[in-house]
């Protein structure tokens, strides 16, 4: 198993290399450059001053040289410094944003699983029932709902008309020094809508997937055997069928990671949450090359790690998959 994991980790390196190479090329081939933005406010900026700025940020060198230099720094775990006014190290900027985005995505994954699995099981066991049809309609509507629109509707309903929930940011002003529970409740109220919104998109797909897995499994011979030997229906469905239907869900969760991370750009922008998505949006708008590369690298690494975790847990739960250390 350890051999398998280390081999998979080693395979991630060429993938990351490819991803950064594509991003770097795409980013730099786009017309215009950060210096344009920096000097656009100042019409008196001379060509000479522009050249000085370009040299200062290393933009005067040819593209391959810049990529190799960037890569050389990344190998030494240095993502460079942001082009923005504060000129802070990219890693510092990312580090303070990651926990928020990860926390929201983890919460919404939990919510998705907590809802999608029971929904999937119920729809499969009671296939063609009224509830199954209602859930199927819900799934189709869920697939078609733009997340940001759902966010707007929830903000209008709960934030503006009912006034129950805050609609932006992570905490209310003036809470410093308040008790733990006050802060906890405040944080929970701020997170409720973002988590709901980001869970909604995945919910439809995963409950649908769970349903079709379950339908597939309950037609298998071993389920008939379990019923034939007189096991109660609860045990047949809850134990024999569920375990086998759950396994493919692990892989799907791994694959849904890029979508979740990408989706954070949208809901973090709408709800004004200071996470990775918002950081990235700002970086792209300001053409902050080192920051863009940093976020893309970290995002891709997280995605690859997620896929690896999914594969490992799949191998752990499915005895049919043998992972050989020596191939």
């Amino acid at each position: 198993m350890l051999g398998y994991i280390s081999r998979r980790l080693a395979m991630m390196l060429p993938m990351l290399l490819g991803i950064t190479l594509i991003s770097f090329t795409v980013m730099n081939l786009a017309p215009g450059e950060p210096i344009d933005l920096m000097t656009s406010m100042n019409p008196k900026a001379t060509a000479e001053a522009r050249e000085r700025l370009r040299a200062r940020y290393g933009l005067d060198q040819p593209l391959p040289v810049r990529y190799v230099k960037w890569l050389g720094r990344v190998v030494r775990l240095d993502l460079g410094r942001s082009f923005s006014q504060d000129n802070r190290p990219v890693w510092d900027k990312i580090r303070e944003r990651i926990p928020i985005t990860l926390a929201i995505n983890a919460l919404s994954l939990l919510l998705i699983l907590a809802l999608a699995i029971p929904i999937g099981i119920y729809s499969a066991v009671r296939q063609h029932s009224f509830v199954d049809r209602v859930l199927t309609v819900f799934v189709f509507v869920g697939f078609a709902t733009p997340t940001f629109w759902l966010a707007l509707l929830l903000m209008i309903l709960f934030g503006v008309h009912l006034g129950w929930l805050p609609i932006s940011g992570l905490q209310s002003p003036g809470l410093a020094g308040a008790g733990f529970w006050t802060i906890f409740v405040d944080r929970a109220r701020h997170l409720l809508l973002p988590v709901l919104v980001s869970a909604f998109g995945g919910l439809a797909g995963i409950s649908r997937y769970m349903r079709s897995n379950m339908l597939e499994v309950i037609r298998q011979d071993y389920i008939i055997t379990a019923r034939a030997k007189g096991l109660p229906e609860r045990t047949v469905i809850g134990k024999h069928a569920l375990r086998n239907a759950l396994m493919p869900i692990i892989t799907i969760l791994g694959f849904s990671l890029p979508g979740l991370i990408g989706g954070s750009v949208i809901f973090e922008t709408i709800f004004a949450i200071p996470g990775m998505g918002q950081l990235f949006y700002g970086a792209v708008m300001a053409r902050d090359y080192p920051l863009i590369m940093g976020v893309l690298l970290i995002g891709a690494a997280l995605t690859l790690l997620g896929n690896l975790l999914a594969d490992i847990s799949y191998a752990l739960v499915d005895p049919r998959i043998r992972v050989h250390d020596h191939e």
Partner: protein
Amino acid sequence: MTMNDGTTFGRRLLANPLALAGLLVVATLFAVSFLAPLLAPHDPNAIDLKNILIPPGPEHWLGTDQLGRDILSRMIWGARISLKVGFVAVGIATAVGLLLGTLAGYFGGLTESLIMRIVDLMLCFPSFFLILTVIALLEPSIWNIMAVIGLTGWMGVARLARAEILSIKEREFILAARCEGAGHLRIILRHVLPNALAPVLVSATLGVAGAILTESALSFLGIGVQPPTPSWGNMLTAGKDNLEYAWWLSVFPGIAILVTVLGYNLLGEGIRDALDPRHYRRRR
């Protein structure tokens, strides 16, 4: 299943009420797009500062926005954007995916492993990040959006095409064609591709829905279709800015997106079921 039996396919499609509903939505989208100048009650770009943020009423059925423009008229013109984005983006994705998938499946070996590694690479990209980067750095224009959505969405089609071709290329009729002296290009175009088209058609129809969603998200973020050109996504930006005063700005364009995407999805699922009745019985 092939589509040789066109009438059976059509009859099956129309017999499925959900697919019929989807077809109706897509047909309506076409009609509204082409007839926009006739259908729109007002000029979609006519600014009327005396009538800003008017709630839905007899003069403006769906209300007006922050510049006094008629929401209904802007939505009708916005249908053109959605129609165009869906078709062009998916056209690009399908062309690239078919080309690379066919090459990989047909020739195998090094070509195949190279192409499939690229597919893996693209799949583990948080693709919305990539789209965002490219779009924000290029001039925002509808053509750039369609190109970028297309160029980041071809991997599924490539996998599908490769899998289909792997299963087709060993069949006897391919061998027969080769014996008759047909070249690679002729075999691919005349014998392999037509047999692989069915699943690709399904995935393209579903892909249109995805492309429309992505365009609306980009336009909502302000880096997609630029105002004053109306698109359902950028109309929702105004909705966000006027959240406290004007719910109608947020509600109606969103419904248009939802119904359109739902329509394409239903149609796609319907085509899948009509092409393969076994699938219909197994999955539902």
